[in-house]
């Protein structure tokens, strides 16, 4: 049976594979975020990257949950689904399994994706369905006006924690690695070029890609990521990972991370005692290293890593599903419903 959907896809004459521009991904709806919100930059970079990759808009679906960030699909001219709180990843999973031909992006927040939606998040990662998850982490529930989220810092004063948060936060990157992820990255709204790079890498990865994007909410949590975006100081606070390259950071690229056994240490590259060759060479394909670097954040003096933590290959869920379908067809032929109904013990009444 050729499904009607296949017929529709075949019938509608496809637009040429024209080169797309960011404008092609802009919807008519005017973004309604607060002036200065980090979401604007992310939207712009996504539109740029989509144009660079030239995926036709009609082949794309953006699925989100609820939150400021989750309004995203309205502003991008593709198929879009603004779901319910926490379920974006589950909706996207169903869509992708039903329609492996569609490129699916998930937009979620630290509340949407890690609080109410935490379970769908970890399960998607282990299943390795080929969707791209962008988690806008502003360490706050913004849409509901400022309660703490699972990434809010211990001690943070918010509307619902007047005496300071007593939860300890998730490290989303570490959580993702622990959940058997195949692609994990971190970037930040205020670094457009890095953001674009990460988006492209995620797009290219086959399987679930997860990017944590630090996003400034200038109304309810202004400045929590300043040290990673402020050009004056960020080089001392941020560590950029590059596959095959040593882990070097610092304003003058004069510091590096060395491993003492499995214990990370900062070394100075201008104390005369150490050189670049002492630094760890980053390897995106090593889960242990990825976890080790992800948990640098546990050490107060360590820089915060950005970039691709992990990019490994594992067959995707839908690939294996299609294989099982193929092999079922090979083995038993294309199923005929009539035959199936008429199989087993049957009898005829005249």
């Amino acid at each position, binding site marked *: 049976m050729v499904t009607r959907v296949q017929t529709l896809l075949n019938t509608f004459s496809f637009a040429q594979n024209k080169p797309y521009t960011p404008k092609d991904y802009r919807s008519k709806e005017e973004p309604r975020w607060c002036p200065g919100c980090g979401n604007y930059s992310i939207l712009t970079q996504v539109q740029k990257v989509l144009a660079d990759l030239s995926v036709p808009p009609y082949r794309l679906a953006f699925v989100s949950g609820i939150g400021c960030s989750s309004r995203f699909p309205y502003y991008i001219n593709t198929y879009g689904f603004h779901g319910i709180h926490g379920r974006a990843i589950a909706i996207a999973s*169903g869509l992708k399994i039903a329609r492996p031909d569609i490129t699916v992006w998930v937009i979620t927040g630290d509340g949407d994706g890690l609080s109410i939606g935490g379970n769908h998040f970890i399960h998607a990662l282990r299943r390795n369905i080929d969707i791209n998850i962008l988690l806008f982490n502003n360490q706050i529930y913004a849409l509901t006006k400022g309660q703490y989220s699972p990434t809010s810092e211990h001690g943070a004063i918010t509307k619902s924690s007047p005496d300071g948060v007593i939860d300890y936060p998730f490290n989303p990157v570490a959580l993702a690695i622990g959940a058997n992820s195949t692609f994990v990255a971190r970037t930040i709204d205020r670094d457009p070029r890095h953001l674009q790079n990460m988006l492209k890498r995620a797009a290219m990865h086959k399987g679930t890609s997860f990017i944590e994007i630090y996003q400034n909410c200038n109304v309810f949590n202004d400045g929590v990521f300043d040290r990673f975006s402020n050009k004056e100081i960020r080089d001392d606070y941020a560590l950029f990972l590059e596959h095959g390259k040593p882990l070097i950071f610092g304003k003058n690229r004069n510091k590096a991370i060395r491993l003492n056994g499995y214990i990370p240490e900062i070394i100075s590259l201008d104390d005369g005692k150490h050189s670049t060759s002492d630094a760890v060479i980053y390897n995106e394909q090593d889960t242990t290293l990825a976890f080790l670097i992800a948990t640098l954040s546990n050490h107060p003096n360590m820089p915060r890593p950005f970039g691709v933590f992990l990019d490994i290959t594992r067959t995707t869920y839908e690939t294996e599903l299609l294989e099982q379908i193929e092999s079922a067809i090979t083995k038993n032929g294309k199923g005929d419903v009539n035959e199936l109904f008429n199989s087993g013990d049957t009898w005829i009444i005249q």
Partner: protein
Amino acid sequence: MTPKKIEKVNDVTIRFAGDSGDGIQITGTQFANTTAILGNDVSTLPDYPAEIRAPQGTLGGVSGFQIHFGSTEINTPGDMCDVLVVMNPAALKANLQYLEKGGSIIANSDGFNERSLALAEYSSNPLRDGSLSHYHVYEINITKLTEQALCDLNLPPKVIERSKNFFALGLMFWMYNRPLEPTLKWIREKFSKKPELIEANSRVLKAGWNFGETTEVFKVRYEVAPARVAPGKYRNITGNQATAFGLMAAAHRAQLELFLASYPITPASDILHELSNYKNYNVKTFQCEDEIAAITAAIGASFGGALAVTSTSGPGFSLKAEALGLAVMTELPLVVINVQRGGPSTGLPTKTEQADLLQALYGRNGEASVPVIAALSPSDCFSAAFEACKIAIEAMTPVILLTDGYIGNGSEPWLIPDIHSLPTIEPYYPDDPKKFKPYMRNETTLVRPWAIPGIPGFEHRIGGLEKKENTGEISYDPVNHERMTRLRTEKIMRLQDRIPLATAEGHTQGDLLVIGWGSTFGAIRTAVQKQLDKGKSVAHLHLRYLNPFPKNFSKLISQYKAILVPELNLGQLAQLIRARCRLPIYQLNKVQGLPFRSVEIEQKIEEVLRGIA
């Protein structure tokens, strides 16, 4: 040897019972199949323990299978049985309550030893102590006779022990005059790789038959003439399997891929199991991390253009409440199946109940009308599931399909339809990108178009926020919200124009109309038929559609003086009817995890008739 007397009977109920390991389910199924092939109408009820593996020989470990067959229409597995076949004391103890006074007990006397009597908590042997004086007791040393039949084959004792159920089956075939051949054929196929088992089981089956034929124990054989059932090709089917097939049939007629997202739960899991076998039939199953993931994944698949379904039972259905609202708001096709079980909460997971009706109608925030359809019997699950899909797709709406543990697990013969004779299902796709608006409705049906990702020109955004009429943009406008709320509700009401009018069986006007829904159909039908036979002024109205009600509902019921609503809950349909009419409404409610017996309904009918006379 005197030739045995042959007695004609209209209908008979037999119950086989033994230990979980005794092959009772196979015995029952074989008897049912052979009986169906003979042209009797049949209804069966398997009844096995909730525990995964209950200890052998105990009351908790008893497995039963009841078969009701006859030369007239058979609508239930039988209130009480005429014959009880028991392999051990626990089986007797657990099942005696289902045996009609004066009925027959066929007991494997070899199974009644000291140990087994103790396990069944009998202080003396009931076969001997006179406690069964109200019944005809036939003690047969089945185990011994089976051993004798096989003594020359050198089989391990376990195998011999395990084939004794065929002795009982053979004996019952003899007693009710059914051929052995279908079972012999089944044995040959089933054990095709173990010839020694073919030989053993066939021999024992015949030994059972011959025992009946030759010994003087039984004086009478019975003849149950064929019923006038519709001609055609049949097979036995359980409700859950029929549901799965109904979905597949609908996907086929709609020419869509079938996508089932589900999380296992008793008694609904078999729908997932069944469909997971059909990867080469355009069927995808997705076992999710929970019920919320399942329904939202299904919604995602529906957005992608699949026939999307999610199956569950009570507690899982509760978890789907929020997302059902999303399906209402996005107006996407979706079928949500609730195989109801005993509640509230975890309740009685393996038992049946009809207590989720009001939840199906109202269990989500906001005004969110959803069509609700209930299946009435195992085989009817096929048509009900098909119909649910057709409405979901053609009206762009979630649809709730209610079945229950009783019909989900129960089986009956199913007249296999020709797939091509089933109605077509026509999705409403948009065709012109220039005119396309995601919430522009068809004027007659109020249905919005289904625009599928992948097609240029129909890019659009949907979601759970209120949306502007036609354009589908987010809108907080007060008047628009009211209009959209009413449009969504009206769209469902307009289904009245396409669902069949209600018809009552029995008198078209009169004293009492008995109204039921779902799996109580058979018991109510039987009860009303008997009352009609007794000349009572009654009728039976079965509601397949619980939302919307059939258009002629109020008119139809106004032809009666009173209404009786039997339900396996505390009166949920009764409440819905009360809000729609001013007639006196009587209720018959049972909340025991068990189906009605038709006599319970008959008694109530008589009581009500006395009261209103």
